[in-house]
């Protein structure tokens, strides 16, 4: 089976053009979506479903910076980055702690505006982290341990954003 980059006819790079990606998604699905085969033979309906499933799956990987980085690492080095990773950098551990505390205190105070500002702050940290991962992928010799750690940091920020949403939902009832 083709890797997600190949399937979308893209060079295996971390940075990608989101608009180009969704344009390619649309043209490919125009060709093979099950709706195009609703009156075709069962075999073609099945093949269309399987192909569309593959395309949707690949799109999900490419669209998510974390999953895209993991797929790219796997492709370039054969290392599976989806397992547990422990990062021991003191700076990061400190930041982790601070973000969790901030979230907990805003959630306890039921401070909706505070949570929204906090989400914006974490989002901008996320963007910086994505840029940092890109730098590591740009190097000729890939430092796999570094990349694994950087992906883990990105994952943590993503998780924090999800938890902020959960906290907001709880306040709204």
């Amino acid at each position: 089976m083709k890797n997600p980059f190949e399937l979308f006819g893209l060079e295996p790079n971390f940075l990608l053009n989101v608009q180009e990606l969704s344009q390619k998604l649309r043209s490919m699905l125009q060709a093979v979506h099950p709706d195009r085969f609703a009156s075709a033979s069962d075999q073609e309906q099945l093949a269309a479903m399987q192909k569309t499933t593959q395309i949707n799956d690949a799109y999900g990987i490419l669209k998510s910076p974390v999953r895209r980085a993991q797929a790219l690492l796997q492709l370039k080095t054969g290392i599976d980055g989806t397992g547990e990773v422990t990062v021991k950098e003191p700076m990061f551990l400190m930041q982790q702690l601070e973000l969790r505390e901030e979230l907990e205190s805003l959630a306890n105070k039921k401070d909706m505006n505070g949570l929204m500002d906090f989400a914006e702050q974490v989002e901008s940290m996320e963007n910086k982290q994505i840029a940092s991962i890109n730098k590591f992928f740009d190097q000729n010799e890939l430092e796999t341990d570094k990349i694994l750690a950087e992906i883990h940091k990105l994952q943590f920020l993503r998780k924090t954003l999800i938890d902020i949403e959960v906290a907001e939902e709880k306040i709204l009832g």
Partner: protein
Amino acid sequence: MALLQIAEPGQSTKPHEHKYAAGIDLGTTNSLIATVRSGVAETLADLEGNHLLPSIVHYAKDGTISVGYSAKIFQCSDAENTISSVKRLMGRGLADVQAIKEFTANQLTASGIGMPAIQIFDEIKNPVEISSEILKVLAERAEKALGVPDGDKLGGVVITVPAYFDDAQRQATKDAAQLAGLNVLRLLNEPTAAAVAYGLDTGNEGIHAIYDLGGGTFDISVLRLEKGVYEVLATGGDSALGGDDFDRAIAGLLVAKANVDAEDRQAYQMAMLKAREVKEALTDSDIIDVHFMNWDGQVNRSDIDELMAPIIDKTLLACRRTIKDAGLKPAEIKEIVMVGGSTRVPLVQEKVGQYFKQEPLTSIDPDRVVAIGAAIQADILIGNKSNDQLLLLDVLPLSLGVETMGGLVEKIIPRNTPIPIARAQEFTTFKDGQTAMAIHVVQGERELVDDCRSLARFELRGIPPMVAGAARIKVTYQVDADGLLNVSALEASSGVQAEIQVKPSYGLTDSQVTEMLKSSIDKAEEDMQQRMLREEQVEASRVVEAVRAALEDNGQALLSEEEFEAIESSLKQLEIIAQGTDIEAIKAAIKVVDTNSQEFASRRMDASIAKALVGSEVDEI
């Protein structure tokens, strides 16, 4: 005026090739059917000119079944044998629906299929059967209107379901269609159908939100329309919230004013009918005179607004969550489309307008818009419009998960993932020589199994006996374009396909559907064999036609001579066998064609993708 359609030379579908397709909106309160005629999608009326068919079924003691307005007249006089709002029971458990007052405690019983059933005289009717009666009446209406020759049927239908329907509710809807003898081309989400109806009118690109408040369900969908592709970005809602809740709240007010016993079913039914009248009258007036039972008085719009506001606020909360899920802000929504009869309530329009900071769109009749969109999609799917670029990309409305230790849920596929989609999971055995295991699949967002909807329990059997932890069972969860789940399992080290037994928590197994179909045909005194043979022959000619068309299209390019010949000869064989009367032989011959053309189908998909990618690069220049 409808414009005359002139096809490009060589592309016109010959009149006899035009296939009959229809779109069905199977609603909680009302149902509709629509078709495309001369390029225009329109809902179809009964002989009296009514487009809406009340979703009410009445069973008379002599076995007569009436549906719609003719059933509605029994709603008060023979309440026990008149069923309305059956959609609320589809794919649900008895405990889920006991709170709904439309069904009295003695009306709902257990059915043996998880879903609640209704006792009608000495018979038990399940929600799937009752819904199929509504579908039959609608299909008949379409067949008459389209002039489908006697003995012939609609080629296929698109049935709409609330976007927020879970797997069990979707499956129940599809089963009802099967029981009514309909070929379901696709289950389509109601908001998506509405978007199609609006999109084609306005040709509007950008991000749209569809606010769909029906009788018993609420849906909110956020879609992006670009170059004919409708991409659902997120969907949310509540499959047990709707205009009926307005009526119930108002009925409570009336019952209190008239000081009648709220447990009296007949009084309650009358209060519900009166409540609807009051709600509708207060759409245009600010104050009305009301006479109910022994009470005469006045009701203000502000009185009922106060009762309805908390219900509407619940819908806005769902809107907020869905827009967030789509990764958007309310200001990015270009248009907000109103669907469903309950959006006629002024307070709904006012509150939705305030939330989205814009005037909601209401130009298409909110009762008909869903059926119209479904008809347009049905016409495309059946192949009447071969070169149409319209494509709908939908998502999974609720996360799918499996039960793990301690009654916790492990998510397999998160909500709002584009469908079709599949995920695989690996399991291993716990004991030496273990040959079976059970998987409990649930749907919902909560962490505990008890807080999610139980979909089905799968029992895997036939795992080769090995030491504990040696077997590697790969379970694949596939969600198709209808949003329906299919589970398959493979023991990875031996390649043995594990046998799966599905026990739907709130639904019918395939064999139960077949059984119900058989018994309904027995009653109609139609020859079962004859009908099955005819259906198999139709299937055979469908297969031959489809595979021939594919061969003509690019068989030469994608197949070796031998491969081409193998498919062609199995087609010829099938054509000969289909002339005969041996049902099993026809089935076997179809299977041969299927097997022979499997690789060809897959190569055709790859070729299409390659072509599409080249095309998209050309677009960029």
